């Protein structure tokens, strides 16, 4: 059905729900590339006015991608919790925004609400929210997950130590791990993006991670970020897999372009859990997402990229993930053109994920063909720190030498901790204190990297 908004003598008509959502979205290059962005700023505001008056329950009766054609839509509709939704069932999208900002929306009430919130509802309300709303409401949401560490508790921030190497060289990877541990990074995961998709190489890297975690009794988990089918095969072969990784998207066709189905993700979850390698919990899935992936795979169905990103979170939610990471600036300027668009998208993704009950982290990042730089990343890091992001990346010097992009550095996490007083995951921080890497306040001790860690490197030196 069509939606309308009147501004003065002009009447704006939006052919269907997905057009209304797309026109209401703050401008970004990906929606322009898809040909679905608002044609003028006034049209954008007209769409927001119409969206604000839309009953929230509309999203339960009208799908942006037809139920019959897309298994993500079926997952969203079939898994919807009507009882959880009841407290906001009578609200419009605009009324929902006001509710979220009000004192009635508490950490507890938002937690009860989250199974009733569909991704389209989260995306719709985010389009009416300023950056400060996205930060404030997200800061009220809590999602705590556990494997060998506990992530997402109030006042904490975790870091994925990302020790990538362009040729998967074990000594090079170990050198980055030792450096990162010395800065107190690695409580979210020590996660390697392999350059190779060879099972032999990936198995070697899994053993390397298992070796260092075991040798130093580090309360954390390792992950080699490879395709879920490879991880399942490696589990069958007896490799030491902690977290099961997969990139996911918000449509069935986009997931197919990644080579995954919902059933395959279930197999990954079951395989990961079967190993029972967690000590404080059994959240085993690590998902990565990012606005623009569905359009990139030509699988977007005319839906705006931010709404599709939120739909990816509905996929993630079905598998009780340990980590969900929006890799916000990785995809490039054709989807998020500059620092302003990347910052907005990062805040939207974090908000939508948190509202839906997910353990959201963010790879605060940019590529060298985007109009962005370290200053933009500092801004987004500061805003997400204030919003209560569960985890960020820790890359040596912010320079990922394998994936060719810039993320946040070991130093960046020190900065945000110093600024906001954020602590690490409790199990991991206790370990850092035992090794004298940090003091009782969580601050780095003077005097250099822990000698035992450095000695460990001796095994890898030529």
């Amino acid at each position, binding site marked *: 059905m069509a939606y309308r908004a009147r501004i003065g003598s002009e009447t704006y008509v939006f052919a269907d729900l997905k057009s209304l959502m797309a026109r209401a979205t703050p401008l970004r290059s990906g929606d322009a590339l898809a040909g679905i962005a608002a044609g003028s700023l006034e049209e954008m505001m007209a769409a927001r006015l119409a969206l604000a008056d839309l009953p929230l329950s509309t999203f339960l009766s009208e799908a942006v991608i037809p139920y019959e054609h897309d298994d993500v839509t079926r997952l969203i509709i079939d898994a919807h919790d009507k009882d959880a939704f009841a407290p906001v069932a009578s609200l419009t999208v605009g009324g929902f925004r006001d509710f979220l900002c009000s004192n009635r929306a508490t950490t507890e009430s938002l937690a009860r609400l989250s199974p009733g919130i569909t991704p389209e509802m989260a995306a719709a309300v985010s389009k009416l929210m300023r950056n400060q709303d996205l930060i404030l409401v997200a800061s009220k949401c809590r999602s705590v997950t556990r494997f060998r560490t506990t992530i997402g508790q109030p006042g904490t921030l975790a870091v994925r130590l990302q020790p990538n190497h362009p*040729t998967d060289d074990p000594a090079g990877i170990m050198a980055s791990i030792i450096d990162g541990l010395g800065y107190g990074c690695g409580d979210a995961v020590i996660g390697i993006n392999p*350059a190779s998709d060879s099972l032999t190489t990936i198995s070697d890297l899994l053993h390397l991670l298992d070796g260092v975690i075991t040798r130093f009794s580090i309360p954390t988990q390792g992950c080699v970020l490879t395709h879920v089918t490879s991880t399942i095969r490696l589990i069958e072969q007896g490799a030491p897999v902690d977290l099961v990784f997969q990139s996911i998207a918000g449509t069935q066709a986009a997931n197919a372009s990644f080579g995954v189905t919902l059933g395959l993700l279930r197999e990954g979850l079951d395989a990961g859990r079967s190993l029972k390698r967690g000590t404080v919990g059994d959240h085993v899935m690590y998902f990565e997402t990012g606005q623009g992936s569905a359009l990139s795979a030509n699988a977007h169905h005319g839906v705006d990229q931010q709404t599709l990103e939120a739909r990816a979170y509905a996929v993630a939610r079905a598998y009780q993930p340990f980590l969900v990471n929006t890799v916000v600036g990785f995809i490039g300027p054709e989807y998020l053109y500059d620092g302003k668009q990347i910052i907005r998208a990062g805040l939207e993704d974090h908000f939508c994920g948190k509202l839906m009950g997910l353990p959201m982290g963010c790879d605060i990042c940019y590529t060298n063909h985007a109009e962005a730089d370290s200053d933009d990343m500092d801004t987004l890091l500061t805003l997400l720190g204030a919003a209560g992001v569960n985890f960020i990346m820790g890359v040596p010097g912010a320079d990922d030498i394998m994936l*060719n992009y810039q993320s946040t550095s070991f*130093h960046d996490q020190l900065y945000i901790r110093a600024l906001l007083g954020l602590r690490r995951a409790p199990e991991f921080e206790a370990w850092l204190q035992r090794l004298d890497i940090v003091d009782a306040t969580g601050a780095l001790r003077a005097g250099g990297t822990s000698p035992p860690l450095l000695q460990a490197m001796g095994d890898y030196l030529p």
Partner: protein
Amino acid sequence: MNDNPEDRTPLTNWSRLRALTPARIGLGHRGASMPVDEVLRFGLAHAKARDAVHEPFRAGEIAAALAAPGRQVIEVASAAGDRATYLRRPDLGRMLSQKSRAMLASHSRRSDLALVVADGLSATAIHNNALPLVTAVLAHIEGRAISCAPIVVASQARVALGDEIGHLLGARMVLMLIGERPGLSSPDSLGAYLTFAPRPGVSDAARNCLSNIRPAGLSFEVAAAKLDWLIDEAFRRSLTGIDLKDDSDALLLTKGAARLPNP
């Protein structure tokens, strides 16, 4: 440079550790912050990478360098007319210009493999590294029962442009060598994408990829050996993509070891 006792001093061991990886490790810190010399070093690297994205592609020079007796080279362009359009419109970078499409169609004849050399996001990568990589790849292929289409040099190209090129040339498989988006430490990295049965609309899950091919990354010789293995397997199984795992490492270490040049 580390005169403040409150700050961590990189231990002497770090010089040895730094030799193990091009990653920016052992930087030290000032309070929570990066030392200023690293801030400036990083800023310079970013400036170089940004410049590499916008370096004009010298397609004619590359085509001339790749041409050889019995080896035809064709220059084509995508539908993205210039760099600014290319960066905002990947859809245009995935399709040929009308002129190039008509020209390639006239070269159509059945072959096993089409080799495409494309600027991608770093013309610098092609300028520095395409010739030795192509030479290494062809050394594996020539002398075997694999017929090659003319080599295509493509401007303002995305990976999927190879699908249309391979399809128009009538090739069973396309190997796309393309400039990757520049990293801070690697403005000249090449990627290699192998796609069986190329045609417009192929899913990315149906490709195999080797990345970071450059002297300081995956060497030309090792990349060529891996590609040779993948090409063999792809023809044998009539597919590429996630169902074709790259198990070349194990193979190269055992019976294929003789293929690898001595270090």
